[in-house]
């Protein structure tokens, strides 16, 4: 095991992927608790698809991928949030429309410029090779911001997640915190997307929270457990993908799925006893 880990660590790209992945998993898990509980899970999924479209556009225009993707996805986060809050349009349907449209536009742009090739597949399903040194810096920056804001606003995020009307009524600007959560999610997704893949990144947001909720009963426990689980599953996913030469993003998702199944089974047994 130790041999394997030292071997893993001897590759610079693996080290980069580990740093970025651990930080992104941590942020995604923290934000995911609120998103899942507020029934906003689909926003994470929608944002990653928009991110895919933005990456394709950046590639076609020969611009740096993140410079295009971050602002585009941030704007999309705003829009998706407004749609979800507006009860006249059914939020889930609108999100599905936006996400499939961005995917379609992205695919057309790619096939028009470079043709469907390995790059496309990498964007959709992720590649561990995609992380450059600047990504490492960016992900450190983003995760410091996310974790700092999350800790500082923890009590407000809890209140807004549990009961938005009450929190609004007692004078907290709930929209501000919703927007904050959406923007932080957008940044996390953009940073993690090229490694995990546009189609798979939302699992980092949804799985840890959902898994933790099987067993843990207070908000604090769920948040802490999500953060820990998310990092463990990510590292395990990388190791598995290295041993069996599986795609990285998919391995991480499958490990998350297994953990979820395990936790669900335990909670089922606990209920029977």
């Amino acid at each position, binding site marked *: 095991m130790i041999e394997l880990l030292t071997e893993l660590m001897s590759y610079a790209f693996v080290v980069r992927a580990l740093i970025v992945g651990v930080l992104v998993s941590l942020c995604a898990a923290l934000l995911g608790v609120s998103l899942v*509980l*507020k*029934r906003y899970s689909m926003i994470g999924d929608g944002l990653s698809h928009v991110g895919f479209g933005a990456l394709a556009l950046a590639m076609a225009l020969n611009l740096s991928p993140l410079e295009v993707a971050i602002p585009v996805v941030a704007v999309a986060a705003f829009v998706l949030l407004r749609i979800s809050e507006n009860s006249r349009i059914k939020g889930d349907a609108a999100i599905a429309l936006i996400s499939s449209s961005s995917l379609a536009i992205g695919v057309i742009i790619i096939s028009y410029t470079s043709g469907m090739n390995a790059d496309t597949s990498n964007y959709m399903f992720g590649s561990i090779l995609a992380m450059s040194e600047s990504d490492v810096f960016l992900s450190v920056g983003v995760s410091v911001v996310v974790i700092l804001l999350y*800790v*500082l*606003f*923890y*009590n*407000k995020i*809890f*209140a807004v997640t*549990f*009961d938005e*009307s*009450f*929190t*609004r*009524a*007692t*004078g*907290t600007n709930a929209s501000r915190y919703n927007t904050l959560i959406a923007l932080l999610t957008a940044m996390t997704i953009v940073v993690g997307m090229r490694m995990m893949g546009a189609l798979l990144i939302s699992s980092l947001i949804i799985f840890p929270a959902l898994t933790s*909720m099987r067993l*843990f*009963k*207070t*908000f*604090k*426990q*769920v948040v802490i457990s999500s953060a820990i689980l998310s990092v463990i599953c990510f590292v395990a996913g990388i190791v598995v993908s290295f041993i069996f030469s599986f795609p990285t993003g998919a391995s991480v998702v499958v490990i998350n799925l297994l953990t979820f199944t395990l936790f669900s089974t335990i909670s089922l047994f606990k209920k029977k006893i």
Partner: protein
Amino acid sequence: MKLISCVGVTIGYDGQRAVNNVSFDLEQGDYLCVVGENGSGKSTLVKGLLGLIKPQEGSITFDGIAPNEIGYLPQQTVIQRDFPASVTEVVISGCLNRRGLLPFYSRLEKARAADKMKQLNITDIKKKSYRDLSGGQQQRVLLARALCATEKLLLLDEPVSGLDPVMTADLYQLVAKLNQTQGITVMMVSHDLESAIKYGNKILHMKTATAFFGSTEDYLKTEMCQRMMGVQKHD
């Protein structure tokens, strides 16, 4: 002393007037019940009072109470039913309006939350998860949270919907006790006319506009009340 006075308040969605020219005063110590059929604008009025929706016309004036000092007991949402949160976490979140921009709760807020839980007899379940509680216990928890947020006014939006008769009676008595012994003003939106008459000293009957506002004794004399009571008895 008037805590809240509403003058000619009109609130609408999409061009429709949900609340039309409603005026009433809420005096300190009152137990005001807001009654009316579904769609008569009760919940919209509550949202207007809480500042969640802006009235298009009219004015809502607060005296001796800040708009964010209302202890609001909202209708339960779907989200809350399976929410992983301990009773303590929920109750103390009512203290948020005392913190302003400060990030964490101090000893003061923790003591306040503990005190309210004791008052409502939920101290022994404080570590339990909110989603594992019965409907009545959940309402007590939300009431404790509302009491953390206010010293003066409780605003309850259909607090007994979904509760069984024993829990309902229990909650009504609890609220009446808070009103009588602690002088907390109560405004309750309710479907339950009988209890409204039994506990409230004032009634606001809404039919989008004000159909009646005044003391419970006067309300009992109105034809509208007698007809409604008749309907409820024949149910």
